């Protein structure tokens, strides 16, 4: 199964990835001992750095900045070729000339989250106190920690108020956290396919993924980086399980059905007879080339802990009381990871706060992943929302 070529490839990618973790090929903001990041777990993280990417120009009024928040396995490379995989940016359907997030109109920023592995400080970075990789010594981080770090980055960039914060899934959680923590800094918000809290089912799937990583002997208690291994089998299994949750029964049936992979008859073995198996294996193996296993543990944990209502005495509406931010909440009919009911609960809370909110549920069979795919109705709605918010913001046409 495992060819020499794939072993060499993995070694090369591991090299590139670990280089990116400390020396990203995108701009990076470094925060020294005078500017620690206070984490929810009680630790002040210092020093730390945030790797980010920008597209377009900030206008003279500094009023056209949009922050894109990436999802669990995303990074700052929204609309440029990925430095490790060489593939296009993860949201080129949404961000780019003529797209809803058009760099000709807006100044678009995306930062790798704290705890990530593409240049922002995380478990794959070197701990300056020891000279070794952080690994599991890295403190547990939360969604509010990620947002706090992004706010520090914006301070550094001289941006006081964001025209819009946009993101799907874990990115959507950050959008909501932005509006709850810094309502006066967010003119409009576009949370997509997300929730104000991670559900028990979602925590369960994340636990499955983490256990798969930790069960891999190459994980070495999280110290694989120092020992020249990487738990790619465990991480691939975690990705395979996760990937199923991003799709839907209907989408899987439409794409693969029960069709066989390069054969007409079953082999009576555990080889990947079915196309869907082959697809999942590919998803798993390509993911491990670009992602750090410990980072996966930390980021899934951050999502699990997310619960805005709990941070406001159990009342979600209290989190958004008196908020002036304009919201456009988007969900997808076949998304069972962050179902429409979760978005509806958010909308009810926003209504109770008399916030200006739009809520659209898009019909698609493509599941949670739909926000990353070419879904014209979703783009139309995003574009119109940004245009009407832009008018209110005085951005002109």
């Amino acid at each position: 199964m495992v060819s020499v070529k794939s072993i060499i490839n993995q070694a090369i990618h591991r090299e590139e990835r670990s280089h990116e973790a400390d020396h990203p090929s995108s701009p990076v903001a470094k925060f020294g001992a005078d500017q620690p990041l206070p984490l929810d777990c009680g630790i002040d993280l210092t020093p730390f750095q945030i790797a980010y990417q920008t597209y377009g120009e900030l206008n003279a009024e500094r009023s056209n900045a949009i922050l894109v928040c990436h999802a669990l396995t995303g990074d700052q490379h929204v609309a440029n070729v990925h430095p490790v995989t060489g593939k296009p940016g993860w949201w080129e359907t949404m961000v780019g000339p003529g797209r809803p997030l058009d760099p000709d109109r807006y100044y678009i920023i995306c930062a790798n989250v704290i705890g990530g592995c593409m240049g922002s400080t995380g478990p794959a970075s070197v701990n300056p106190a020891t000279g070794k990789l952080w690994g599991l010594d890295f403190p547990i981080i939360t969604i509010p920690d990620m947002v706090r770090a992004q706010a520090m980055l914006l301070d550094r960039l001289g941006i006081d108020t964001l025209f819009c914060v946009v993101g799907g899934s874990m990115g959507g959680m950050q959008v909501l956290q932005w509006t709850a923590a810094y309502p006066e800094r967010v003119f409009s918000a576009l949370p997509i396919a997300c929730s104000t809290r991670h559900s028990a089912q979602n925590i369960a799937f994340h636990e499955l993924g983490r256990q798969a990583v930790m069960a891999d002997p190459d994980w070495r208690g999280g110290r694989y980086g120092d020992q020249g291994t990487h738990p790619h089998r465990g991480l691939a299994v975690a990705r395979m399980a996760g990937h199923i949750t991003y799709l839907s029964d209907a989408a899987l049936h439409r794409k693969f059905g029960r069709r066989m992979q390069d054969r007409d008859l079953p082999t009576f073995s555990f080889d990947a007879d079915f196309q869907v198996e082959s697809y999942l294996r590919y998803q798993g193996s390509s993911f491990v080339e670009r992602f750090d296993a410990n980072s996966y543990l930390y980021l899934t944990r951050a999502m699990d802990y997310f619960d805005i209502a709990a941070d406001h005495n159990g009342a979600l509406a209290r989190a958004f009381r008196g908020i002036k931010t304009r919201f456009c909440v988007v969900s997808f009919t076949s998304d069972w990871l962050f179902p429409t009911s979760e978005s509806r609960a958010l909308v009810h809370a926003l209504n109770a706060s008399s916030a200006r909110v739009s809520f659209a549920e898009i019909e698609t069979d493509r599941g949670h992943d739909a926000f990353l795919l070419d879904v014209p109705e979703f783009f139309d709605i995003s574009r119109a929302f940004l245009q009407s918010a832009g008018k209110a913001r005085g951005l002109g046409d």
Partner: protein
Amino acid sequence: MALQDQTLPLPGITPHRSGNYRSDHLLVAEMVERGSKVLDVGCGDGDLLQLLESRGIDGRGIELSREGVNRCVAKGLAVVQGDADTDLVNYPDDAFDYVILSQTLQATRQPKAVLENLLRIGRRAIVSFPNFGFWKMRLQLLVGGHMPRTENLPATWYDTPNIHFCTIKDFVQLCDEIGVKMERAVALDNFGRPVPLNLPWWFWNMFGEQGVFLLSRAGKER
């Protein structure tokens, strides 16, 4: 009951613009004070909301159909998918200056509860509905012996979303029953023109194709 006269076209809307809007929408828009905050329940494609926003009114909408919602949001309107029967309870008291229920009352499961909610959420409510006492309706039932269908209500009895039809007279009775004050009432005829005012209720009930009512809480101000 003191009723005031209406004339079209309405102040603030130039005649050539008014041609693009439904006359009942123009009438509703004229009832809303500028600068106020409005919730349109059952906002459809958002035509009324657009008219309101063009007049400097902060408008929000609820719409049951996903297609309607998405068309509204694509127009840049603040509209959420929701059901008048179940979702109005989520809005706090006095959240809006006006809550509008345009041609939707007859499609709700519990019109009375909906009406009560409108006047809890909004200080005022504007309700318009097709008058089932309209002479054409009566004639079809009396002479034709079948459930009435008109240009504005073309659905057959078995596929209509309208499950709680009422007449202007019925609605006035309901308002009295739940202690709602009628500030203004207008009946629009077949051509969307206001039925002359100095005529008795039975005439309205016969010749008004639809009723438009501006309501407020009577004597139980919170």
